[in-house]
């Protein structure tokens, strides 16, 4: 398995099309097959925290283990983005499944705040395992 460690400042364009802003409270989401990217993101506009996001990318829902993992590492930021460009093209038949694990670290505690799942580019977490 290939592990990819990424700390990204996501391009402004991606930010503009996201529209799913953690405007006034911390929120988390994953998106898959977004015409060239897969991602898991936690953010709260204007408020920085110690955060870490792991985004597990599976080739399909039938896979038992991730094809690869993006890990932001522990970062002090208002937006922790595990963003992977150049994958997730539905037009070429991609069917990625993305699972995001959103950690934060208040005063040394380690809190898994949310788990998010996506098979498409919508801004909704998955429901199928609830």
């Amino acid at each position, binding site marked *: 398995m290939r592990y990819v460690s990424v700390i990204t400042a996501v391009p402004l364009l991606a930010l503009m099309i996201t529209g799913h802003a953690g405007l006034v*409270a911390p929120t988390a989401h994953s998106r898959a097959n977004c015409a060239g990217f897969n991602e898991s993101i936690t953010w709260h506009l204007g408020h920085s925290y110690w955060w870490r996001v792991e985004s597990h990318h599976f080739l399909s829902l*039938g896979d038992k283990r991730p094809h690869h993992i993006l890990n932001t590492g522990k970062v002090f930021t208002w937006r922790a983005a595990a963003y992977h460009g150049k994958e997730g093209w539905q037009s070429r038949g991609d069917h990625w499944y993305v*699972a995001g694990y959103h950690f934060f670290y208040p005063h040394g505690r380690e809190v898994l705040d949310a788990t998010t799942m996506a098979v498409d580019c919508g801004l909704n977490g998955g429901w199928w395992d609830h």
Partner: protein
Amino acid sequence: MNKKLIAVTLLPVFCAYAGENTGPEDIAKAAKAREEWTKEHFAKQGSPVPDGGVTVIPERRMLLGDETKKRRIKEHSDIMKYGYINQALPQTQSLLNFKEIAKNKFTKTNGSNEEGLRHKIEEIEMAYPFKGVPVHDITTMLGVAPSVNYVEGQGWSGAMQYFQKDGLGICSYRENNLKFSHGAAIIPEEDVTTEVNGKVTVKTITGKENSGFLYEVDWYDTNYFRELKCADSSYSLDKMSSLLELARIIDNNG
């Protein structure tokens, strides 16, 4: 929305995402295998595993990293010297100025997964009945926003209320419903009290003279993670006592 109806409607979509010649049973088996693999993966890291509940362990058993260890040593040293963590936080200023900041943050639309501030919780599609801070314990309600994550077909797994409370300042209360977020936590036992109704509780005061203070109480149980914060211009241990009392009221309300 009816969960079974959603499942039937969307099943062909998920089969498509599962690859060719993959049926619902194969998808379910793969999901189970993924869940087990993921728990093993995070357990190896020493991190919380999804749906893993709250674990309280000695700090020396936590894999904190050098930077976090240094930060905690500094924080403990500050608390011994000042009674609080001597650090100016941008969050404190944001909370103190929230009335002004909030003016442009109210959402104009009400899409199901739309973020942004609302005037009342009923305007948010929640995955569960959010009770939050009792109305009679709020001096002025400033707004409420969806938080944590949005679960399709169910709603938001948490929310954050902003309010003013006489004697406490400008406050926020955030709730995370673990049934929908699948959260978990590992907490150093040295930080833990049981002051909120016997539950795992962590309290901190962070601030600096002339920049304001942030009073925080977080408490954890098997169903929720909850965070109550109030910002005020001055330091006082009485404020922390009042904050703990409000936390107990919120906990009893939920």
